[in-house]
């Protein structure tokens, strides 16, 4: 490149000269760009494979659960779901007590927590969205979600169970303390944040012209909430409750610690029982027979399928709501 002129050998890709150095240089440049293209492809492939990992994980979980619960599905069939006794010593496996226990605790917890989570959602979404008091409440809700479930369980065991025991003594049922009722109370606290935070964001998305129109017609604040805000957000609130339910069904540690771990069918809501998750946590490492282990895994499979379906419905509802 002397005196500012471009010589032929400086344009390597369009080889005009036949001088050997120039050809070598051109080939090198070509190889470099090929290498770059290949590197790009490898990078793109890596990204795709990492995405595929997620699919493989989900499919793998489903397949593993199905394959491992095959022995019990083959040996017990549909009887498994409706069987009313669970007695591993005599090889009788009926999952009904656990299904019932799970349904009872989850729905009881949901019933207790719904008024509170909806109230939080209305308070933060409609009445007071900013300021230090709402901020405090928002942080409190996040804290409830952050406390580990094993700590809820420990606190429940030390504080809530004795309280429930005294209460049961007054009501006139056998004072056990541990049982379905105690675990529902703990669960109710734990699942408040899921419905509350989703409900809050849904309520704050209600278009203000709708509310203003209602105010303009002379509606009071409560009438606006009841006939504009709640109907507008009902699918979103429903989705939040579904997500809470999904959490409650799968929650393991806190429930395991306070439910009393009895495999008999619970006679009342104050009786000890077991949920699907808690029986897996308790008996998985003790299961010495293949059918026993496999029956526990079938419980896991049921739990997996139920939570997947509930979460999918919840997500679908949220997506439809936010796209409208």
């Amino acid at each position, binding site marked *: 490149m002397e005196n500012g002129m471009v010589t032929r050998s400086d344009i390597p890709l369009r080889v005009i000269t036949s001088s050997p150095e120039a050809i070598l240089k051109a080939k090198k440049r070509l190889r470099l760009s090929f290498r770059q293209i290949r590197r790009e492809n490898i990078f793109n492939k890596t990204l795709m494979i990492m*995405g595929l990992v*997620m699919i493989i994980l989900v499919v793998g979980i489903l397949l593993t659960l199905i394959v*491992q619960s095959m022995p019990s599905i083959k040996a017990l069939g549909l009887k498994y779901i409706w069987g009313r006794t669970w007695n591993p010593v005599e090889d009788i496996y009926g999952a009904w007590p656990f299904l019932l226990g799970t349904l009872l605790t989850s729905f009881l917890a949901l019933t207790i927590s719904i008024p509170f989570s909806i109230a939080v959602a209305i308070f933060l979404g409609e009445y007071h969205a900013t300021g230090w008091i709402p901020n405090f409440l928002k942080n409190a809700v996040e804290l409830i979600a*952050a406390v*580990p479930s094993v700590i809820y369980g420990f606190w429940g*065991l030390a*504080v809530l169970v004795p309280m429930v025991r005294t209460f049961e003594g007054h009501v006139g049922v056998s004072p056990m303390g541990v049982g379905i009722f105690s675990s529902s109370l703990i669960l109710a606290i734990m699942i408040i944040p899921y419905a509350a935070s989703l409900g809050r964001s849904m309520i704050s998305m209600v278009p203000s012209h709708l509310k203003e129109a209602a105010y303009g017609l002379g509606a009071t604040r409560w009438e606006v909430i009841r006939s504009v805000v709640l109907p507008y957000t009902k699918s979103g609130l429903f989705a939040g409750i579904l997500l809470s339910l999904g959490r409650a069904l*799968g929650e393991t*540690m806190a429930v395991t*610690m306070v439910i009393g771990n009895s495999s008999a069918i619970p006679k009342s809501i104050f009786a000890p029982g077991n949920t699907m998750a808690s029986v897996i946590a308790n008996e998985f490492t003790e299961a010495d027979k293949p059918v026993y282990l496999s029956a526990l895994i079938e419980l896991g499979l049921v739990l997996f399928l139920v939570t997947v379906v509930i979460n999918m419905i919840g997500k679908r509802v949220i997506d439809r709501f936010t796209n409208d």
Partner: protein
Amino acid sequence: MQAKSVKYRLGKSYGFQLLTYLLAFAIVVPLLAILFYIVRAGITKINWHFLVNIPKPVGESGGGIANAIVGSIIIILVAAVIAVPIGIMAGIYLSENRKSKLAYWVRLSTDILQGVPSIVIGIIAYFWLVKPLRGFSALSGSAALAIMMLPIIVRSTEETLRLLPDSLKEAALALGMPFHRVIFKVIVPVGIGGILSGVMLSIARITGETAPLLFTAFGNPYLSVNIAKPMQSLPLLIFNYATSPYTDWLNLAWGASLILLVWVLFLNILTKLLTRKWKVQL
């Protein structure tokens, strides 16, 4: 229908407002009760001795939870090493291929994975790692926790990168930068705040997880740093000792609960500060 008087309607409105306030603030009561109780029960147990010793056998008083603290740190670090690269790359894939068929399925799988009960993840890790390796190990526990971290990291990475303007990437590509350098030198550095917050959030979520560790890391009464062997962790120790009848062990569990609580709250506050500093929405 007869119209109700304005006074009645206003009264009803205020009544419900008051009810909402009461119900909303009622949730603070159990939270404060739990925090207060854990702090009161735990604070007297914690001292230097408690932090650097391992639990004593039944009958001897004293002892500490050093094995659980070390175990928790190791298990979480290994889980992060497994989950962070995969999660971030999958998140980048999703934000770069928004409309492809595969991205739809990846997104769906991420959603499903987020809802899987933790006990099921424990079963899976047992069959994928504990059984083939013939024994409980900290590594299998880390893998189980990593599976729980993945969806959070993927989602937060995708959401963060999706918000970046396309012109940023186009400008870099127009300068002739190769695609992978655009990602690593432009896109990721700009979105690092959101990505880091997602990682922190996922660590905060798994720190207190017990169920996936029950059949994987299993617990260990001695101090161990070998990830191929069973290892103790704070949540496991709390679960095992809280349900035991011995006062000494209960005391250890209270102290461990306080430490776990402070640790988790610290991680959550850190995440909050990060999100505020980088103004990301999670």
